[in-house]
């Protein structure tokens, strides 16, 4: 038994086993559950890094469940990809790294943030399940399992959003809205999968990609998939669940939810690039995605400026930042059929968009964690009631400044690097888009200046006399994210060359994706 061949499944199986064991452990010792969950996620993070090194040096990996080969050979000699399998290329592992890192830090942060009341063991179980389902969405090689993992993700995240629902009404309301939205999304995805199955009799993404014709039915499937997955990713005007869910969930869960909606974003990219690629009218679909991006960027940031709830404000920024990813990758898609333009600026635009996914997960995670730290000590999320907190919470203030500078795209933090890639390449495609993106960046800075001034600056307020710095595990999680942000900001070329560029190329080169599975055919 060679365990190194099994890393793709161990990344999921270890947290899954831990998730099922935690209720039993919770019966014996309530305190051990959190540490156990953290250890499992830590192991999964280590395995993800090992797998990433392997994939980036060797190439895409396939892991087949329950059999030795992914292909079923019929007596007539026809080979047929029928097995459930994981197909992990550079893009999948890029998202997997984000998931692993974010959920590990979220678990560490939860150790102090979640009080040890009734149900804290199910909290960790659900957190692990959410992580597993996100990994599944990113690694899976067939569409139906994508649907299953999408549903598991939505159920786990709804239960986590409602975690504080025993005492408060708002988390339950947010949970209901998110549940309705994600059930429609998942069912519509299943409908589209049914269309593919009816047409091509296969569910494997690579197998469909090799025969896709872009017929009328495929167009319907494309429209449904793009719109519902954009809803799950929080694109305007289907973004209304985002501020509700992000503001009411516990802070570490919000951080993981950001990564979960990016998994849906990844699914859109997977569908348009790996499934359809140049069979579709790339200019039209590219412009659809660009318009999503523009609307998300602009409406997200303008709605953020007028918010008074710190979590809602950051949630609207999450929408706005998602717009950058749509913009970058949309420009890449719009010129996909045009090799010269793709070489000249398309690849750079996509690099910017994909790099922004990772940057966004890091700094938005950090910002949500600082908002959680403020809530943990002051008990309020209303910015009107805060003030002068920098006097009491020095580390949190520093982390907030780092996060705010990164999201506003100030050099030398990581947000600047990816936004620069987007500006300079999108400018060659259409200057207006680039100008709007810069304007949004300025408004982002403006609204974070507002948060910084009203929450941290100002004189010491009498009602916050008792406030002190948050516990060590929370500071640790925020410090790790800050270090990553600074590292990415100082050496963006390392990340872009080694992680982002292979991810972009694996999206663009559809042939490589299909031949990994169907190589023997």
């Amino acid at each position, binding site marked *: 038994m060679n365990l190194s061949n099994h890393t793709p499944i161990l990344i999921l199986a270890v947290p899954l086993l831990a998730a099922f064991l935690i209720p039993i452990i919770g019966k014996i010792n309530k305190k051990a559950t959190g540490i156990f969950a953290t250890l499992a996620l830590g192991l999964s993070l280590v395995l993800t890094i090992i797998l990433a090194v392997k994939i980036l040096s060797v190439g895409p990996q396939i892991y087949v469940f329950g059999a030795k080969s992914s292909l079923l050979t019929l007596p007539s000699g026809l080979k047929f990809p029928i097995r459930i399998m994981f197909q992990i290329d550079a893009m999948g592992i890029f998202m997997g790294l984000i998931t692993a890192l974010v959920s590990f830090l979220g678990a560490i942060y939860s150790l102090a943030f979640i009080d040890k009341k009734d149900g804290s063991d199910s909290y960790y179980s659900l957190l692990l399940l959410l992580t597993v389902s996100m990994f599944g969405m990113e690694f899976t090689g067939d569409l139906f399992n994508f649907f299953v993992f999408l549903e598991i993700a939505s159920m786990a995240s709804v239960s986590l959003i409602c975690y504080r*629902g025993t005492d408060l009404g708002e988390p339950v309301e947010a949970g209901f809205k998110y549940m309705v939205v994600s059930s429609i999304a998942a069912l519509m995805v299943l409908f589209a999968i049914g269309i593919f199955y009816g047409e091509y009799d296969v569910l494997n993404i690579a197998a469909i990609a090799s025969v896709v014709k872009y017929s009328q039915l495929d167009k319907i499937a494309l429209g449904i998939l793009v719109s519902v997955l954009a809803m799950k990713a929080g694109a305007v005007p289907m973004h209304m669940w985002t501020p509700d869910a992000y503001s009411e969930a516990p802070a570490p869960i919000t951080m993981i939810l950001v990564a979960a909606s990016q998994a849906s974003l990844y699914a859109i990219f997977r569908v348009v690039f790996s499934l359809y690629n140049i069979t579709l009218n790339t200019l039209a679909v590219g412009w659809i995605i660009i318009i999503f991006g523009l609307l998300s960027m602009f409406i997200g940031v303008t709605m953020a400026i007028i918010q008074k709830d710190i979590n809602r404000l950051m949630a609207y920024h999450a929408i706005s930042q998602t717009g950058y990813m749509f913009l970058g990758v949309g420009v890449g898609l719009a010129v996909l059929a045009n090799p010269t333009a793709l070489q000249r600026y398309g690849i750079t635009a996509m690099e910017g968009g994909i790099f922004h996914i990772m940057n966004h997960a890091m700094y938005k995670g950090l910002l949500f964690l600082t908002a959680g730290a403020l809530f943990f000590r002051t008990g309020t999320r209303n910015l009107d009631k805060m003030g002068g907190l920098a006097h009491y919470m020095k580390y949190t203030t520093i982390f907030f400044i780092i996060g705010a500078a990164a999201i506003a795209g100030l050099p030398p933090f990581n947000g600047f690097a990816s936004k620069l890639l987007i500006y300079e390449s999108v400018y060659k495609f259409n200057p207006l888009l680039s100008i709007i993106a810069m304007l949004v960046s300025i408004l982002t800075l403006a609204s974070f200046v507002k948060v910084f001034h009203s929450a941290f600056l100002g004189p010491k307020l009498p009602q916050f006399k008792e406030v002190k710095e948050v516990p060590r595990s929370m500071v640790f999680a925020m410090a790790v994210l800050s270090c990553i942000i600074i590292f990415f900001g100082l050496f963006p070329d390392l990340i872009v060359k080694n992680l982002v560029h292979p991810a972009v190329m694996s999206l663009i080169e559809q042939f490589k994706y299909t031949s990994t599975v169907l190589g023997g055919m």
Partner: protein
Amino acid sequence: MIGNFPYIAVIIFIGLGIYTLMFKRNLIKIAIGICLIENGVNLFLITLGFRKGAVAPIYTLAPSGQSMVLPTPQALTLTSIVIGIATTALILSIAMMIYKHYGTIEVNEVRRLRG
């Protein structure tokens, strides 16, 4: 022609479900709407598995001269039903908790989060 009736039923199911989600202002009815869409999609999947003259996939080897349907759509539908039960249970229990906190299940009044 008669073979297409299930697809028409699918469209009716999904259309009714979406209508319920868009216009019915009661949380339980919204849960029913989601169930309707789910039933429509399940019916769609199971209809796709139909092959004329084929036998059920219960033999180790198909009887000669007869084709056997692929069991994949049935497996998909079963999985989707199981997931649907979990979804419905979760939605209904959340609706219950909303009633506990808000004292109503009218959509108009369950919107403290907005703006």
